[in-house]
C-alpha cells in the first residue's frame, strides 16, 4: 500500500494497463505535452511517446468518433474529456456509435473504449462547467459507467474499465483529484458491478456514488453524534448496478436516502427509487428520499451555488425524514 492522490491513482491505472497491452492508448485535449488539464497523465508522454499519448484538437465529436472507430478496429482507446461537460458535444458518437455498434452489427463489432474525465461541479465554475453527466451515459443500453470516489477505487475501477470489452465511462471529480488515500501496489483491478460499503450502520441507508460519497460520510458522522448510525453504500458502478448490495442494505435499515450530485429529473436516483419500490417495497418503513442538485442550472454566486448543491445538511435532514424524526 502506498498513499497516493486520486490523480496519481488514475495515472497508475493507465500506466499499469498501457504496460501490459500495446493496444491501449490515451487521447484527449492537453493529455500529452501539457500533462493533462488536471495533470492526470503527468509523465505519460515521456514514458509512452506520442504514438500512444496523443494531444487532440478541440474537436470532441471528432476525436471521440475517431477513438470509437479505433476501438471498432480492436484498439482500446482511453478517450479523455477535459470535463464531461464537453463530452455533450460528443454524445452522438457515444450513444449512436459506441453504445449501439455491437447490437446493430449482431455482435461483430465490440467497442472496448474508456471515456474518462471529471463530472459534476467544482467551485464557482458556473452553469456550463458544472454538471453531472451520469444520466446521459447510463441512459443508453450498451454503455457502462463507474464513478470512483477514492484513490484506491480510482485505480481499480479505471483498470477494470480499460480491460472491459464494452464502452465504459469513468466519471471522476475535479474536487477529488487531490484526495489522498491508501492504494494497493502492483496490479489492482476492481470488478465492475460491485458496490462498496464505505460505512456500516443499521438505522438508515445513504446510497450514493462518486464525489457525493464524501458528503454522505460527513453526514453520517453528524448523524452519529445524534446516535443515528447510517449505512453508506457507494455504488461505485452505476451500470452494471450492484442491486444485491442495495437490497441488502434496504432490508437491514428499511430506510433509504439516495444522494447524487446531478439533477433529479430522470437522474440516477430516480432509477434507484424505481428499483427499490419494485423489488423491496415491503422492506421499506418510509418512502425513499432523494437529495440532488436543485433543479436549476448551476449559478455562479457563491451563496447560490452552495444552495444549489446537495450538501451535508440536506442529507442529514433527509435521513431524519425517513426516520420520522
Amino acid at each position, binding site marked *: 500500500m502506498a498513499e497516493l492522490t486520486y490523480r496519481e491513482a488514475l495515472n497508475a491505472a493507465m500506466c499499469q494497463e498501457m504496460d501490459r497491452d500495446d493496444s491501449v492508448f490515451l487521447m484527449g485535449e492537453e493529455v500529452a505535452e501539457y500533462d493533462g488539464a488536471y495533470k492526470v497523465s503527468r509523465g505519460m508522454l515521456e514514458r509512452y511517446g506520442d504514438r500512444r499519448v496523443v494531444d487532440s*484538437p478541440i474537436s470532441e465529436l471528432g476525436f471521440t468518433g475517431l477513438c470509437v472507430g479505433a476501438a471498432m478496429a480492436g484498439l482500446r482507446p482511453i478517450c479523455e474529456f477535459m470535463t464531461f461537460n464537453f463530452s455533450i458535444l460528443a454524445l452522438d458518437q457515444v450513444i449512436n456509435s459506441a453504445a449501439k455498434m455491437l447490437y446493430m452489427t449482431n455482435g461483430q463489432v465490440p467497442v472496448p473504449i474508456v471515456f474518462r474525465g471529471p463530472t459534476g461541479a467544482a467551485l464557482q465554475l458556473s452553469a456550463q462547467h458544472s454538471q453531472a453527466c451520469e444520466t446521459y451515459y447510463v441512459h443508453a443500453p450498451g454503455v*457502462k459507467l463507474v464513478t470512483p470516489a477514492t484513490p484506491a477505487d480510482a485505480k481499480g475501477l479505471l483498470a477494470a474499465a480499460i480491460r472491459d470489452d464494452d464502452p465504459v465511462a469513468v466519471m471522476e471529480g475535479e474536487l477529488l483529484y487531490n484526495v489522498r488515500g491508501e492504494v494497493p501496489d502492483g496490479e489492482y483491478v476492481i470488478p465492475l458491478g460491485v458496490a462498496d460499503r464505505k460505512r456500516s450502520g443499521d438505522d438508515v441507508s445513504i446510497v450514493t456514488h462518486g464525489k457525493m460519497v464524501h458528503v454522505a460520510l460527513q453526514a453520517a458522522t453528524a448523524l452519529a453524534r445524534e446516535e443515528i448510525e447510517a449505512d453508506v453504500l457507494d455504488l461505485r458502478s452505476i451500470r452494471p448496478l450492484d442491486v444485491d448490495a442495495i437490497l441488502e442494505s434496504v432490508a437491514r435499515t428499511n430506510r433509504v436516502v439516495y444522494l447524487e450530485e446531478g439533477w433529479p429529473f430522470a437522474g440516477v436516483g430516480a432509477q434507484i427509487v424505481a428499483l427499490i419500490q419494485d423489488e423491496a417495497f415491503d422492506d421499506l418503513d418510509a418512502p425513499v428520499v432523494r437529495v440532488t442538485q436543485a433543479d436549476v442550472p448551476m449559478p455562479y454566486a457563491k451563496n447560490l451555488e452552495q444552495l444549489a448543491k446537495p450538501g451535508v445538511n440536506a442529507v442529514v435532514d433527509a435521513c431524519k425524514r425517513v426516520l420520522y424524526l
Partner: protein
Amino acid sequence: MTDGAGPGENTMADGSEPAASTGPGGFTREELHALLADMLLYRRFEEKAEEAYAIGKIGGFCHLHIGQEGLAAGSIKPLRDDDLVITAYREHTQAIAKGISPGAVMAELYGRVGGCSGGRGGSMHLFDTTLGFWGGHGIVGGQIPLGAGLAWAVKYRGGDQICLCFMGDAAVNQGAFLEALNMSAIWHLPVIYVVENNGYGMGTAFSRVSATEMEARSGACGIPAHTVNGQDVVETHRFFEELAERVRAGAGPQFVNAVTYRFRGHSMSDPVSGTYRSKEEVDSHVEAQDPIKILRDRLMDAGLLTQEELEALDAEARALSDEAAEFADASPLPDPSTLYDHVYAEINPHGRLFLDGREHGSGGARDGGRGASGSPAGGAHG
C-alpha cells in the same frame, strides 16, 4: 473530370484508349464484362428490393443506390480484400461490392437471421467486418470520424491497408466532417474520403445550403481534392486504383468529389421527382448519365459486347437477385430469445446491466436470465 494533379489524369475521360489496351481504360474484355456484370447486379438487386418493399417484405427506411452503381463498382473493386470501407445508409450495393453476398444483404433488408447483421441492423446498418465492410451508418456524417478511427488503427499497428470512407454531399456540412478531416491531415491517416455527390440531401440541393463548392471543402485542412465522374465506371476504377496505391504508399488523406446522380427518390416514400427537382432533370440524367448504359454503349461501339452477351449478363444479374430474395425469404426471423444478445460484449459477473425488470430472455431479469450458452445476456444478475 479529374483535377490536373490527380491520379486520374491519364484515364480515358476523352474516350481515347492507350494503344496497348484491349478496351476502354486499358481493361481487358473480361474485366469490362465483369464491371458491367457488377453494375447490372447492383441495379437488379435494388429493383428487387424496391419490389420487396412494395409488398411489405422490407420495412423502415430503405435508400436505393440506383443511378450510382458506377461509383460502387469503380471505387470498391480496386481495393484489396483487407482494405476497409465505411459508409452511410445508402449502402446496399457497396456492401455487395466489398464481397457480402447479395443474399446476406437482402436477408438483412428483410430483417432475417441470415442477414449480414443478423437482422438487427436493417438496410442502414449492413456489416461484415471479415470482408472489410464496416457499415452502414445512419447519422449523417457520423461515419466520418469513425472512418478516421479505422485508419488510425491501421496506422497505429503499422499496417498497409487503406480506408475508404463514403459520405453523401449533405454530410460535408456537418462539423464531424471538418473535425475528422483536420485530424486525418495532422496525423497523416491512410484514408480516402469519398463524397457521393448526387447533388441533393433529401430534397435540398447542395448549392442551396453550401457556401462553397464541394472541391473547396477539404482545402481548409490541406487535403488534396479530386473530382471524378462517378457515372463512368472505367474512369472511376482507374482513378481509385491509382489513388488507393498512392495512399497506401503514404500520400496521406485524400478527398474525392465523385459526381453522380440518384435516379430514385431519397427513400421509398419519396417520389422520384417533385418539389425539389423536375421530371425533366431526372429524365435527362437517366437518359444520358446512366453508368450502365454508358459502359454498355462504349463496349458495343468498340465491338466488345454483343446484344446476346448483354442479355446473358443481365439474365445472370436477375437470377442472382431472385436468388437473394429467395434466400432472404427462406431465412428465419431472429429468435425472440436473442433480444438481449449483443447489447454488451462482456457480461460482468457482478451487478445488473439491464434494468427493465423483464422476466423473459434476459440476463437482466430477476431470475438471472435464461442462461443460454454463449449468450452474453446470461448471468448478468449479480
